[in-house]
């Protein structure tokens, strides 16, 4: 792990990369870590769900372990470590649960003892500083590991309440797989960092992660921008938030998924960037943007 730059109780940085849900996509995870370093991340954190969806779940865990990436536990990680009967993803639709169960059974079967030991060591949540902002890192929400926080169903007043209850200026989460950022004013923010394991239901094969920079830091000023579809940094109120698309060799991943007899519906998502399953939980706005 890269050394903190401050002597506070929480490690502090000017610029961090936050990676959500790897979902066993070891090819994209490796590409995302390289991209985060190339962009000058002072630290890289993983926000949970190492396995699920993709092939050979041990491989993504090995990458996280080898690179010493600190992280928080996702519901998938917790379920695998405990050997739960299902992933605890929080789906309500039978079709969604059918696919979730296929994915979970495969992941549970293929996760070895070393990977389980790594997952068991993931923290429930972590606290860091970015500039002068106190940032809480969690998986679903600060209060529940499998709470879905979508952009169109997470209002400002609710975010403010969570920040008050958890004594933070900012919280960063994942779990939904779609990245977004909302600034509340007064230096308070919520950032869903998206997922590096699965496309964002936007018709693009790339996956996404988030860079958080202290507003006015050299990192924020030098952040590359203007790439195809890349979102410019937002939220200069004490914090700059930038979502980074990661191109990777998705055809290799799709081939591995086929070799492992994973569902064709999952492979289609990797190839097209459109979600084909687990759609019932999407709110109206997010669902309208997808193909299915």
């Amino acid at each position, binding site marked *: 792990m890269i050394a903190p730059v401050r002597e506070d109780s929480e490690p502090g940085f000017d610029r961090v990369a936050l990676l959500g849900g790897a979902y066993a996509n070891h090819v994209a995870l490796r590409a995302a870590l390289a991209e985060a370093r190339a962009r000058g991340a002072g630290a890289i954190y993983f926000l949970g769900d190492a396995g699920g969806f993709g092939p050979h779940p041990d491989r993504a865990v090995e990458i996280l372990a080898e690179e010493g990436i600190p992280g928080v536990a996702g519901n998938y990680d917790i379920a695998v470590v405990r050997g739960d009967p299902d992933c605890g993803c929080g789906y*309500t*639709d*039978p079709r969604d649960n059918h696919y979730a169960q296929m994915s979970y059974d495969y992941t549970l079967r293929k996760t070895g003892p070393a990977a389980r030991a790594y997952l068991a060591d993931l923290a429930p949540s972590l606290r860091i500083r970015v500039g002068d902002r106190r940032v809480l890192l969690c998986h679903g929400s600060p*209060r529940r590991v499998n709470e879905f926080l*979508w*952009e*169109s*169903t*997470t*209002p400002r*007043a*609710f975010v*403010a*309440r*969570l920040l*008050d209850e958890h004594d933070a200026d900012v919280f960063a989460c994942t779990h939904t797989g779609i990245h977004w950022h909302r600034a509340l004013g007064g230096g308070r923010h919520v950032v869903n960092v998206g997922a590096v394991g699965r496309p964002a239901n936007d018709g693009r094969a790339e996956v996404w992660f988030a860079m958080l920079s202290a507003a006015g830091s050299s990192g924020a000023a030098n952040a590359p921008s203007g790439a195809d579809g890349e979102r410019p940094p937002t939220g200069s109120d004490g914090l700059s938030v930038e979502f980074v698309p990661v191109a990777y060799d998705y055809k290799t991943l799709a081939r591995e998924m086929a070799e492992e007899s994973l569902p064709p519906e999952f492979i289609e998502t990797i190839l097209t960037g459109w979600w084909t399953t687990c*759609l*019932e*939980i999407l*709110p*109206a*706005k*997010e*669902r*309208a943007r997808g193909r*299915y």
Partner: protein
Amino acid sequence: MTGPPAARWTPMTTPAAAATASVPFLSLDTLWLQVGGTVCNLACTHCFISCSPTNHTHEMMGLGEVVALLDEAERLGVRDYGVTGGEPFLNREIFEILDAILARGPVLVLTNGMLVTPAKAARLARLADESEYSLDIRISLDAPEEAANDAIRGRGAFRKAIEGMRNLVGAGFQPGIAVTRVDEATTNEEILESFGALLRANGVARSRVKIFEPWRIGAEAARARGYAPDERVTPEMMEGFPPERLQCSTSRIATARGVWVCPILVNEDRARMGSTIAETLTSFPLYSGACWTCHRFGASCRV
């Protein structure tokens, strides 16, 4: 249209010998607003609050009282809102109410769909487009065929609901469907399959079907049966049971007459918890058979 009179619901009593379980209050995540009161253009024979054109147990809510509640809810950090009735689209201020909600957060509207004309659907679409939050709509239907549906919901209900659904689809919505299992022999798979086909045939490609077990109070107690004395939540049943599975641990409903524990029990004085939301954020005794249904089947109006 004939239907049960307003007073047809039966107050529930707890057997004297049985201890009553209670649910802790965890967090106010969802605020329901009974904007249609108990007034409805239908008088469904399974309605647990016996709504009808003549049931004024709860009157419709005005924009002013809704905004006051929204202001309080926002101070409390509510996550999402639900709108119900009665029939919300009977409320003449429904669009202003939805606009006020969508300025603060996401909303789910429960409706029979019958009053959604193309013009109203277009107005809803404008509200949805102008908000950063989601407007979700769920239409109630009870059978995928006209005769069986209308036997429960009233003559013409099926055709008008399908018309409303098509109008919503035409305006860009993908409404969900709420189905009450009025025939115990019907399986979840049969319901999902038959309603999925109905939705697809009417332009809803991304179907969402939510199945409810009937709450055996109100009109439903007369249509089928009420609760047996042992159909109650006991303290033992709450041991090890995650309270967040009961919607009363995370939501409340405001009507024109105050704030109630949940949308199911608004006809019971015992379930009125206060005049303001803040007064109601406490534990609640699970005294009703309806609580047993929620406990057993995991019913939640929200998701």
